């Protein structure tokens, strides 16, 4: 792949609506946030987080915005701040919330509406492929 093609590919990702491709920039920005989420794989860390969320998250070096997004469960904001859904979903698991709950929060509908949408075949790809072009 040529240098131009690589750059073009990156540019094209930004054209996909409502999608946060986990690029090196995202990964670098989100590292402390995602590694905090990773820590919730361990039962003792889940217990510590449950005891005092604000105190527990201090040790990961997150930015103020990242910490606020975690404590307020701002799911979309976490993605904007470099979170990756496979990592941030660990907070939802901790909260005993489903992927439909999180999907609804990120797309501005309720969990029930999200479930209903999935049962009727999911969100249509038509009109959701590109910001620039309607197809």
């Amino acid at each position, binding site marked *: 792949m040529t240098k131009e093609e690589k750059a073009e590919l990156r540019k094209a990702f930004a054209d*996909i*609506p*409502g999608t946060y491709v986990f690029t090196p920039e995202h990964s670098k920005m989100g590292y402390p946030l995602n*590694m905090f989420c*990773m820590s919730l*794989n361990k039962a003792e860390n889940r217990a510590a987080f449950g005891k005092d969320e604000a105190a527990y998250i201090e040790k990961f070096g997150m930015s103020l915005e990242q910490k606020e997004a975690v404590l307020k469960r701002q799911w979309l904001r976490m993605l904007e701040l470099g979170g990756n859904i496979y990592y941030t979903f660990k907070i939802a698991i901790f909260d005993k919330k489903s992927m439909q709950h999180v999907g609804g929060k990120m797309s501005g509908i309720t969990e029930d509406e999200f479930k209903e949408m*999935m049962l009727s*075949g999911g969100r249509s790809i038509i009109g959701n*492929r590109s910001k620039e072009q309607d197809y």
Partner: protein
Amino acid sequence: MAKIVGGIGCSHVPAVGAAHDHGKTENGYWSPLFAALPAARKWIKDLAPDVLILVYNDHASAFSLELIPTFAIGVAQWFENADEGYGPRKIPDVEGHPELAWHITESCILDGFDLTIANKMDVDHGCSVPLTVFFGEPEAWPVKVIPICVNVIQYPPPTAKRCYDLGQAIRKAVEEYDGDLKVAIAGTGGMSHQLQGERAGVINTEFDVNYLNNLRDNNDVNKNRSHLEYIREAGSEGIELVMWQIMRGAMEDKVVEKFRKYHVASSNTAFGIICFENAPEEKTEAEVKAMKEPELVEYANALGIKAHVDDLKKYTLEKVLTKLGYS
């Protein structure tokens, strides 16, 4: 000599494992999917592979952002089930096949695929959900498993083409193995789904069905698709479909479809499973016409035609000739 006897593409939706573990497979939501699985399970049971090479991706379980191998092969004797935040699933641990795994590692690296070697790698739903789909709830899994873990979370994941080529290198390695083993290979993940962002929940059935058809008949289309097309058309997590290409590369050019189920939706995902065997050697028209009935029926079935010795021979013959393009 070891041989690859079957290939499977299969989604690994965690909710499918949870539905199974919590006894929900017969409720209205899950029964359309689970009711279809016995036929796939029978096919795998009859195939009776000794080893299953299971290609999947880790979801922040064994690997984190600390270490992101593009391709990691598990060479251990045992693999434990990971705690993904719920506590580990109460299912059997996965037994490996270190001898074949090391052989594949050596062969692939010498042939230009620099696999990361994992002696400890807890496996998550990416590996365990397909095992549940294939085998239900046994005391122990009925096959040895060689897990191959692919990075599809951190951009850039390997291209579909690279995955396909790795599959070919794996097939070569298996065929060069001295032991007499039947090996199946599964590529898992997909199909279309997006978990993240405002576009969460996107499903593209047309893309998925084309992917399945092309996987069987015209895989160059799937193999040559860019990351952009996969993400745009199949969703940000639909990129997992590149892992099916490792399976496809490990199979021969011509395959016969033995089972397929496509279901929307399981949780946020389009669930797909497809089972392939390598197509039998192509016979000439004269050879087919000269076949005695039991041989003809066996050949018809190998071609993917459901035939039985109780059927009229001329009907089976017609179907075989049509399938091979002789009439």
